């Protein structure tokens, strides 16, 4: 029998094979070879691409190097979205490896946030964790933690250490026995088809009659366009971590098992690919 705990490992150790190519207009001293890497789905682009940066900088002149940014098929990739989310949202239907273009010039100020250092990633990550706990436990759990616990969460992600991370993160996933779940489920729903970056609302894991809310319940309430009518043709895929959970899946379970390290469920709604 597989245990639910295995899901956490599968989610943590999800990897996306990626091919980084330098943008054609970048000026190089010699030809830049593509660079192949397995990116952790749960991490952030700028956190895990030191090697990429080093690789391409070797063929470039110092004065041509400014802040690195990434782009896929014309879309600048937001470093503050988890890698798995970016892939699911933009590239899940394309062939592997994922081809990402590397830029050192022309930072798209209106699309991307600057990422001056890893402290910026840490600050962003921790603010997400705190926001999620505000939703789940009125911030009680995160506030009771010590500074070193916060650090351990971050270092766990930074060093890709599952145990280190989960030794602390499990406390964020607990809830009082008399409740049947968190206060609210921290989730964000992303769609490529809308202007809005994402949908985020207050949604409880348990209905007033004691029933557990499901993924389907959530979508019907906050993003009805994503779900197909009963008899209608399925138009969209609802994807988390590269998989499509059934709409009957309890939302509380999803939140405990398929959340990203920032404690949010990042759900991608993407058009059903036509074969």
């Amino acid at each position: 029998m597989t245990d639910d705990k295995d899901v956490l490992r599968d989610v943590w150790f999800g990897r996306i094979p990626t091919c980084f190519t330098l943008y054609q207009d970048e000026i190089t001293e010699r030809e830049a070879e593509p660079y192949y890497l397995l990116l952790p789905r749960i991490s952030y682009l700028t956190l895990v691409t030191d090697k990429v940066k080093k690789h391409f900088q070797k063929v470039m002149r110092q004065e041509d190097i400014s802040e690195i940014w990434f782009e896929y098929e014309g879309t600048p990739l937001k470093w503050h979205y988890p890698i798995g989310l970016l892939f699911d949202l933009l590239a899940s239907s394309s062939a592997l490896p994922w081809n990402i273009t590397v830029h050192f010039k022309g930072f798209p100020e209106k699309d991307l946030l600057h990422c001056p250092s890893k402290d910026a990633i840490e600050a962003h990550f921790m603010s997400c964790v705190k926001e999620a706990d505000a939703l789940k436990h009125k911030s009680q759990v995160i506030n009771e933690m010590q500074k070193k616990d916060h650090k351990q969460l971050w270092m766990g992600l930074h060093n890709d250490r599952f145990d280190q991370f989960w030794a602390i993160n499990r406390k964020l996933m607990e809830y009082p026995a008399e409740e049947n779940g968190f206060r609210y489920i921290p989730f964000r729903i992303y769609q490529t088809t809308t202007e809005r970056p994402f949908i985020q609302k207050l949604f409880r894991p348990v209905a007033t009659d004691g029933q557990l809310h499901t993924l389907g319940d959530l979508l019907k309430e906050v993003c009805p366009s994503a779900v197909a009518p009963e008899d209608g043709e399925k138009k969209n895929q609802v994807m988390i971590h590269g998989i499509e959970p059934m709409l009957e899946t309890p939302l509380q379970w999803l939140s405990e098992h398929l959340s990203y390290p920032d404690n949010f469920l990042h759900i991608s709604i993407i058009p059903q690919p036509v074969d």
Partner: protein
Amino acid sequence: MPSSALWAVDLFGRVHVLSTAGQSWELCRDTQLEFKRVSAATQCCWGLACDHQVYVRVRASAVPIRRQEEAYENQRWNPVGGFCDKLLPSDRWPWSDVSGLQPRLLDGVALPSPHWEWESDWHVDENFGGEPTEKGGWTYAIDFPATYTRDKKWNSCVRRRRWLRYRRYKSRDTWAKIPPKDDPQQLPDPFNDLSVGGWEITDEPVGHLSLWAVSLQGKVWYREDISHTNPEGSSWSLVDTPGEAVQISCGPHDLLWVTLWEGQALVREGISRNDPKGSSWSVVEPPTSENGIMHVSVGVAVVWAVTKDRKVWFRRGVSSHSPCGTSWMEMVGEMMMVDVGLNDQVWGIGYEDRAVYFRQGVTPSELSGKTWKAIVASQECDRSHCGSNSSLLSAGCFFGDEVRGSGESCAPSDTDASSEAERPGPDQPVPAESLDSPRNPECSSASGPGTSKTSEHATEGTSLAGQTSGPEPQPSQASTPAELPWTNIDLKEPKKAPGQGTAGLPDTASLCSLGLLPLGLDEPCSTGDHLLWAWVSGGGCAVEAHTVLKWFTVQSGLSPSVQALALSITPAQTAAWRTQIFQQLTERTRRELENFRHYEQAVEQSVWVKTGVLQWWCDWKPHKWVDVRVALEQFTGHDGARDGILFVYYVVHEEKKYLHVFLNEVTALVPVLSEAKHSFALYTPERTRQRWPVRLAAATEQDMNDWLALLNLSCCESWKVHGRPSVQAIWSTTCKGDIFVSEPSPDLEASEHLLPCDQMFWRQMGGHLRVVEAGGQGVVWGIGYDGTAWVYTGGYGGGCFQGLASSTSNVYAQSDVKSICIYENQRWNPVTGYTSRGLPTDRYMWSDASGLQECTKAGTKPPSLQWAWVSDWSVDFSVPGGADQEGWQYASDFPSSYHGYKTMRDFVRRRRWARKCKLVTSGPWLEVAPIALRDVSVIPESPGVSGRGHSIALWAVSDKGDVLCRLGVSELNPAGSSWLHVGTDQPFASVSVGGCHQVWAVARDGSAFYRGSVSPSQPAGDCWYHIPSPPKQRLKQVSVGQTSVYAVDENENLWYRQGVMPSYPQGSGWEHVSNNVRRVSVGPLDQVWVIANKVQGSHSLSRGTVCHRTGVRPLEPKGQGWDYGIGGGWDHICVRANATRAPRSASQERAGKQGLPNGPSLAAGAPREARGPVCC
């Protein structure tokens, strides 16, 4: 904690029961009786009916209430006819009692009341003091009264034999009338009130109860001799009172209060173990003179009263020593009556609304509680069957919707009123009801996972309800479920009940269909919206601080806890959505990784270090705790394998040193909790041989748990052990009740290159048990220190293992109770007699058993912070050697053997005091209520025998010594369904079921028994064959493997049964194997493992060590020597599930898939077909 019951009487005289696990009142439907009052104990409920007769309703149990009747047949030899029943005129009766003074003809022995029946006919007892007799059970002597012997001698002039017959109490789960006290000289004086209590006064006889009653004329009566085996008691005796009594209340212990017509209360003094009726009365004045006491109720250390103005009063300062207390304290609320139940919890009936109220917040430190809370549980439909746990629990979930209708009106739900308000505002699109087709009102209780299937199923349920009209289907539904509460809900066999879920469906569906049943039938029972109550009794209702009660909210659909339960057990594990997530993740990994494994990882694996400050029990003398810095370095190798090293840095003679332990060498991490230190012991093979583990202590419990959890996780990672233990796992427990499990390597039972058992890795499981027994197909049972039976749920973790080290589901709360004993020692001196002033050389006057440690009542703490006291100190009379009326045991001097009576030569005496403490933890265990066990045995996994189709044989001995056989045990339902009682002539102590259903048992008199004709089709066999014990030894435990039978006696000798053959399974004799053995476990390969005492290591001596018999072969089943494993401090081992042998078997493949260490690659090694056991 099993569910228990609150009893109450409504205004119409109907008796209702509310389970602590349930949510609605269940009617005790029985004849035409109407009751005025009830008074409940755990095992029975006494009632006073409107005909003023007293009734008792004894709870049904698988173990019958059984009494032995005996008679002696006496004969004398005469030269003409040999032995015959012609006795001398001076002799005793030919048929007599044991003393010979009373005639006792077999036909003259009558049943005491119509509530008893004979179990079988009279038969001769062939067992004489543990030895079988020949020649029809006759024992011989020179003359009456004399010492009888087994053998006939030349001077044996008389002989006698014992005839036995058993009677059973048959009126269980029904109101049995107690014959009225007919005194022809007096006018009838019917009863007006009664109260039962006194179950904590004494353990002797088992199940003693004190029943007190008050008659209309104001007299107080006591019912004599009520006990487990005499549930009706024998006679009424009058207890004189100084006034006219109207009402009486008897507490569990020695409190007894009576209210008088004049409004005062009478308090009984002098109630004790030796005098349960007490000796004298004291008067307590009412709180105010104008309003006398109308009603009083007492607990262990509390008294509550209601005065004539309906005010409620709490008596301050009440205790065993001061039964009258000191003063009254007025409480809020107006009540008709109040009742104190178990744990001094309080219920009342409101004066205004006639509702039942529960006093919330009653704890040992705050006995007066906080507030009254109304119980809004609604009324349940009629149920012919009530009082047993199973049906009570099921009440909460089967009738979800019926309750909705009737319950909502009577009380507003106080669940989460704010939730509505906090929902997203009206601008959010609300899902249209029409989209949500399965959510019609009938089905809302279960429209969770698997919606479409659920609705289909619900329709089936409706049609079923439509077809069968009338109340018939309900009792059948109620009685079908097996005995275990959780089997009712989840593991129910689908064929048994119509309209229930088929195997693959999420079981919520079947609940839903059941929930529909009462829809058409609820009119007859919902006569009033809510019931009006007249009386309540909590004497059988165990509510504790952590008990979650569902009495205070209106049931809406499926109650959350039932839902949680339903989700957590197997069927939900196979829910479609979960399976799909598992499959998709596997598929995703394949898709995204398989062809790209050669890519570089973005994040290099690094070393992670956790450091901290601990204390270390240093290796050199004098041993003491020294402060050390500790660092755990974890690193990942190139192959992804993980390992770690634990460094302990210490300073000796101002020189910095360290010791280090590779985590892949750690074989066990054992928490050693004491009242002072939070420490743990870390074993490696070398440390095991030294009998000197690395002992580390943390400053706080939290700190220790963090370290222990981390080290455990890392060790399990190193040993590649995770998930649930395999079905072959070896289970053991320590003397602290900790549970350890080890995955057997195939080399463990190899004939050559045997894996030394000190290299086994032991991983801790959550929970607290004294005994764990595993057997075939993953059936694992445990017994707690309090005798509670537990079944393994397939989870792992719990206890201090949280998060990753624990399975998400199948871990439940568990509690255990044990007694802590101290000794009071006294020395006699000629002036004052026995005093607590000893000689200067004497032991402490309050000490432990050895006398070496001082243990005072005040200074003795529970064993660790996990434990909390739940009782006060009391004298323990059940000591080996016996005790006098005050519990004293006498001896000539201190370290000596004690006896229970005083002689001229006795100069010292001692008595044992016991205090109960309780631990609450969690683990992958579910309680198998309600019978407490002493021993349990599961048929071992037989190599090559699938055993499917039949239920798995499981035998047990109850705490009272009854032998029981569990029915319906299977891989899918390891808890089984019900107990089958196997009759014995005396209490038993141990039982073991081995290969080919050989059942051996040991009786309390130390002799062994073999059970004949046990087979899958006849699971309980037919009769016992008496096997004498080894000469001058009393056996205490037996274990049967595939063919080998081993037993351990009270002097710690290990015996092998010779000559056991298929044609003669009883064998021919006992052969001594070893001494210093405390417990033995023989496995399906006839492997022999024991817990041995006194194993000498290089550093220290250990008690309680796991040992493995080496050189056991088919032709040499006794083996040759011992291999020493983990210990000391181990108490129990069970290797009976381990049939792991060389060629890979199906079960090993299964284990391999779970990533367990004995995966296929390991299992394929070591050819060992040669040592197959001889099959019988």
